[in-house]
């Protein structure tokens, strides 16, 4: 535990805030309303007296509010970005007050399809309104309001987190002083939407899904595991898989000539799929992937022009991509960087050469850490 404490934020707790109660519902982009909304969040570090050292971290598809540290002494694994966030780490909790909340539509404490609908006292299921990246950001805005924070040192995130970062800097140009967008894009490619569609199909074609009403029986939907397996393929790369798994068999020896998992890559995917069922809700997978598919920063903030969408941005920006990421390819980061530059913004961009694909942003990577640390420490420099 001592080792944990020196480089870790230590034992942390997920907090909850409920708003949009009685007669003050949250208005969504699709004009529907939700009431009430509970948001699960964690914070690390101390908010300064001038309230100007807050960094908002926004999570990806399967993330949650638990970015760093441990929930208990017996916790085996730390939060999902513990390598990035903590004392002396790139997002240094000795300097910054770090906030992360579970997204709207999520299943890790924030209101989503698995939450009880106050009208029926039963889980929403697919009666939950379709939410957008913009709606997620709106909930984060309400959380910051309640914490008394009206200026952010930075807002940062990878993948779907990067989309929320774009939404933040475009919708609320006066709040974030800086922003970091990692392995993300301004709008998903047709290929990425296609993968989302197959993932959703795996869920909705599973009889266990039962049109989204499965909460009073068994909430483990095997179709969600299939969606997750597919997802994991898109998060890795051919080279990364070759290095790590190759054609290795789980048990050395001959082929069994049976339909069971024999190759290590099969075992890996099966494990990732089934462990996902322990912590994730199938309906949330549908809602959150849909929110990603709909997101289009250029369409929403620039009448179809990403350059125009960047025009009002005031935050200093830093973009990062990974050369082997084929789900959110470097090309899409270059497009964001060039659009921002054409809009007259000064942005930094680092294209990191790595074989680990989209997953790279969650893995130890000194170049990513060094870029984030340098960028954050010079935000106030002219």
């Amino acid at each position, binding site marked *: 535990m001592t080792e944990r404490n020196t480089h870790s934020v230590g034992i942390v707790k997920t907090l909850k805030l409920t708003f949009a109660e009685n007669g003050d519902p949250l208005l969504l982009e699709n004009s529907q309303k939700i009431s009430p909304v509970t948001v699960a969040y964690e914070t690390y570090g101390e908010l300064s007296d001038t309230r100007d050292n807050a960094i908002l971290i926004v999570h990806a598809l399967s993330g949650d509010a638990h970015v760093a540290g441990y929930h208990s002494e017996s916790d085996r694994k730390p939060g999902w970005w513990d390598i990035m966030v903590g004392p002396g780490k790139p997002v240094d909790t000795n300097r910054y007050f770090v906030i992360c909340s579970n997204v709207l539509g999520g299943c890790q404490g924030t209101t989503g399809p698995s939450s009880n609908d106050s009208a029926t006292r039963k889980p929403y299921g697919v009666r939950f309104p379709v939410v957008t990246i913009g709606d997620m950001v709106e909930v984060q805005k309400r959380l910051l309001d309640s914490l008394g924070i009206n200026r952010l040192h930075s807002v940062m995130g990878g993948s779907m987190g990067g989309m929320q970062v774009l939404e933040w800097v475009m919708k609320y140009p006066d709040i974030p002083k800086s922003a970091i967008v990692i392995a993300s894009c301004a709008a998903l490619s047709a290929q990425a939407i296609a993968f989302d569609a197959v993932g959703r199909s795996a869920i909705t074609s599973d009889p266990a899904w039962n049109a989204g009403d499965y909460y009073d029986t068994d909430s483990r939907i095997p179709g969600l595991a299939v969606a997750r397996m597919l997802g994991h393929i898109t998060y890795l790369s051919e080279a990364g898989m070759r290095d790590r798994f190759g054609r290795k068999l789980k048990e050395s020896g001959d082929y069994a000539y049976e339909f069971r998992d024999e190759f290590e890559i099969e075992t890996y995917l099966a494990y990732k799929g089934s462990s996902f069922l322990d912590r994730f809700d199938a309906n949330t997978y549908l809602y959150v992937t849909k929110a990603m598919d709909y997101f289009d920063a250029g369409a929403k903030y620039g009448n179809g022009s990403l350059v125009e969408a960047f025009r009002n941005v005031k935050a200093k920006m830093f973009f990062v991509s990974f050369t082997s990421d084929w789900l959110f390819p470097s090309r899409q980061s270059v497009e964001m960087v060039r659009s921002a*530059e*054409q809009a007259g913004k000064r942005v*930094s*961009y*680092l*294209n*990191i050469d790595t074989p680990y694909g989209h997953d790279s942003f969650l893995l130890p990577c000194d170049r990513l850490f060094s870029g984030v640390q*340098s960028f954050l420490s*010079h935000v106030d420099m002219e």
Partner: protein
Amino acid sequence: MYKELHKQTTFAEIAEMIEPDSHVLDLGCGDGSLLDLLRTTRQVSGIGIDIDEEAVLASMERGLTAVSGDLDQALAHYADRMYDYVILSQTLQVVKRPDHVLEQIVRVGKQAIVSFPNFAYYKVRFGLLFGGHMPKSKILPYEWFDTPNIHLLTINDFKTFCKIRGIEIVKAVYLHGKMKKRRVNAFANILAEEALFVIRKT
């Protein structure tokens, strides 16, 4: 050591060419030391571009704005005359298409500053003439098989190129010797180890 000193002198020459408070794009920015110098001595705002990740990171560590990019492709999206100066210091000889890059920098910059090692420098000539090997010098330290310099040129080549392409040479500075002192213009194509040009599109 020599390389450092050499760099510093060339950078000081470049700094002298730049008006204070201007907007600068530094292509092949390396560790950002030139932009850092220009920021301190000329109060410029600037962006560095480099294909090397470590260069981008080193520049960011100085608090500079830096972008990963391949110069052969990284310029087309910039608007005409978007920068007061585009700097191409010791980089022209490493790009795939110097002609395209030169056309771009005089489009994007109101002025462009280009420096390169002069391949007609007498020691380089002697190296080839008497040694019979690809010339090496302090400014051209590489072997033929590992050199990043894929388009070496002479001062006369550069002047001819500018003339044909309608690019005006606003200023030329020729450098030579240990301390990289300025030299007279006479016989520059033979005596100058390095050339520095300020150019613009007329």
